[in-house]
């Protein structure tokens, strides 16, 4: 009997452990009360938690029948978290995302067209040129909170120390190379050398996206309108020749992530670099005095290009979970992307450009010294075709940049290798 009981107990534990956690958590939803799930990595990031908690409190006070349930994971894991939940039948309603994530969510069948969830008059208030970057086959699958091209941040103090006029930053790559000669001779207070110019090239998708921005600066492109690889153009080659030249002259910190560049810039070891406007928050967290020396300028013009850049954005990707939850999600999105919801955020937390016409004149943006220098550049952007393999493309662009810089490879040969690998990856 004792043996039998032991055997039954062991079998029960074994079977129980297999089926444990197998049940789906049901979202509470009654006729009057709705809970929406919002996936948001920013809640785990320094400085943002208070803002998003305030949003939840404010929204729930205005809409007592709607409850927001946060789904959090670190930045690099939030997409997998959302996908794993959806795979288990538990779809979130809204994802705080980046522009580059949209093609993947659309391809996965998660992202719903924004016009299915949001009222048309609300969508019509967004700049049509900005909304183009969110479209796949003419349909928008994301709605921006705010946008930014890759702006040129520069250190006014270092410009002065190098004998340059801090009020006239470079406008072309040639001018930048000229300025770099004197900037690269500087040392910081600890005797460390100062890098003249920073362009991220590390193996992360956002670096590839930034490199695409640089290609647009030179009037080049990477993809054809149908999403196939089309890099046999002067601007594309010129951009990588420039990266090689910057590396050979020691102007660009090698293989750096954006956060490395922010770190160096904050410490006074980098004179200018490309970043999304909200990168300022990272700089300020390292050096609270950053406002005293930072200024922004429009992206540089290179070769035959006119300094166009790539738009980046923090946006909401919406998931259709039925009428009641879609209505609640719509209210939530409209609550956040409003002057009330974003005014303080854009002025004090994340300097960026509003995507809505009605928010163009909010004082926190218009008078923000960090944004002022690059304010005209939002309209000078190129919308790249949205493809499901965008992460692959961006990572291959990083590999190409590394090949011509730290790899010391010839630009033409490296581009030939890049085409071979990328064509195979995009062919799926």
């Amino acid at each position, binding site marked *: 009997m004792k043996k039998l009981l032991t055997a039954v107990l062991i079998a029960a534990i074994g079977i129980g452990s297999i089926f444990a956690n197998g049940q789906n958590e049901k979202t509470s939803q009654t006729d009057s009360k709705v809970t929406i799930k919002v996936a948001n990595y920013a809640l785990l990031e320094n400085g943002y938690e208070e803002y998003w908690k305030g949003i939840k409190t404010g929204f729930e006070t205005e809409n007592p029948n709607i409850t927001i349930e946060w789904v959090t994971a670190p930045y690099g894991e939030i997409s997998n978290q959302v996908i794993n939940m959806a795979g288990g039948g538990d779809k979130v309603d809204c994802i705080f995302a980046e522009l580059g994530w949209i093609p993947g969510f659309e391809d996965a069948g998660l992202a719903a067209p924004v016009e299915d969830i949001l009222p048309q008059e609300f969508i019509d208030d967004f700049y049509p040129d900005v909304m183009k970057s969110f479209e796949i086959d003419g349909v928008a699958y994301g709605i921006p909170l705010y946008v930014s091209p890759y702006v040129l941040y520069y250190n006014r103090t270092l410009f002065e120390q190098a004998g340059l006029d801090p009020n006239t930053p470079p406008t072309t790559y040639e001018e930048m190379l000229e300025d770099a000669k004197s900037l690269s001779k500087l040392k910081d207070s600890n005797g460390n050398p100062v890098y003249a110019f920073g362009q991220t090239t590390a193996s992360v998708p956002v670096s590839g996206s930034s490199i695409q921005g640089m290609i647009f600066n030179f009037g080049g492109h990477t993809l054809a309108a149908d999403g196939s690889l089309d890099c046999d153009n002067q601007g594309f080659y010129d951009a990588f020749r420039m990266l090689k030249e910057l590396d050979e002259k020691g102007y660009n910190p090698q*293989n750096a992530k954006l956060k490395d560049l922010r770190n160096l810039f904050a410490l006074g070891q980098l004179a200018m670099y490309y970043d999304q406007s909200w990168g300022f928050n990272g700089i300020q967290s390292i050096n609270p005095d950053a406002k005293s020396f930072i200024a922004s300028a429009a992206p540089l013009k290179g070769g035959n290009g006119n300094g166009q850049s790539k738009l980046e954005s923090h946006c909401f990707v919406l998931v259709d979970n039925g009428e009641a939850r879609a209505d609640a999600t719509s209210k939530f999105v409209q609550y956040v992307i409003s002057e009330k919801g974003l005014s303080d955020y854009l002025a004090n937390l994340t300097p960026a450009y509003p995507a809505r016409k009605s928010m163009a004149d909010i004082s926190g943006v218009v008078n923000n010294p960090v944004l002022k220098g690059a304010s005209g550049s939002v309209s000078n952007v190129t919308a790249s075709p949205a493809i499901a393999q965008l992460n692959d493309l961006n990572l291959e662009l990083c590999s190409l940049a590394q090949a011509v810089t*730290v790899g010391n490879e010839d630009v033409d040969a490296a581009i030939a290798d890049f085409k071979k690998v990328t064509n195979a990856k995009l062919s799926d």
Partner: protein
Amino acid sequence: MKKGSQKLSDNAYSFVLTIPAVVLTVSFIVVPIIQSIIMSFEKYGVKNIISGKKGTWNNFRNYTKLFETGQIPEAAWHTIVFVIFVIIFQFILGMALALILNRDFKGSRFVRSIMMTPWVVPTVISGLIWMWLFQPQYGFVKYLISFVTNGRVNDLAILNNPSTALGGIAVAALWKQIPLMTLLLLAGLQNVPSDILEAATIDGAGPVKRFFSITIPFMAPVIKIAVSMEIIENFKQFPLFWTMTGGGPNGSTTNFAILSYREAFVSMNLGSGAAVTTIWMILMIIVVGSYQKAFIVQDMS
């Protein structure tokens, strides 16, 4: 109770006791492996996970693409070079430390305890520590090299150079793994019979002869297990590679683990990720199997 029926009852009881282990092994190891192998022949993306639809046969495309782009040979080379380099240095340094710690000297217990610290540190944290140490602008290693070379080498960037990045990760792996290897070898050393060593000394055998003819053969079982464990550990090394270089620069540290993760969870192509995993698993079985076989031959000889 008759003897025969008692034996039958014991056998049945033993069988029932093994059921949970068998069920768990099949459910969590065998089934996922088979599922992964099937997936490697299919076009299988995130859409399939979310919709619950089965993947579609794609005519070996996952495999042909990986070889077409040269990713598999490159990942195999990086994985094998890393494993060989780390295992050789780990064994030599681990054995040297074990021989030192096997002698009774003042503070040997304290040294043994403190030596285990790197092994206790989580691998991701180890990766971050070494990434900062190697940081090219303000890392400690840069300052150290600059100081040692009297300012002649000021631009050492181990993780940014495609020809040194793998070595940089190997250094971090050695720092992390040598303590365990030392501990295992030390346990083996303490089981070498002292009377045989004394007899050999009386017979005129020197320390080198004693080490290779007595100590090593007696430690063979421990060495075999310790090295097997470390081969597997380094063959599937992911956290150090991911935190320190992410597979770069220019793909110079992309091993099987990184390639598999990138294909499955960055590119969101689970079929391709499964193809990498399948090739990786086969190669690991061949390497570990060959090592085991080589060691048996040595035992017998």
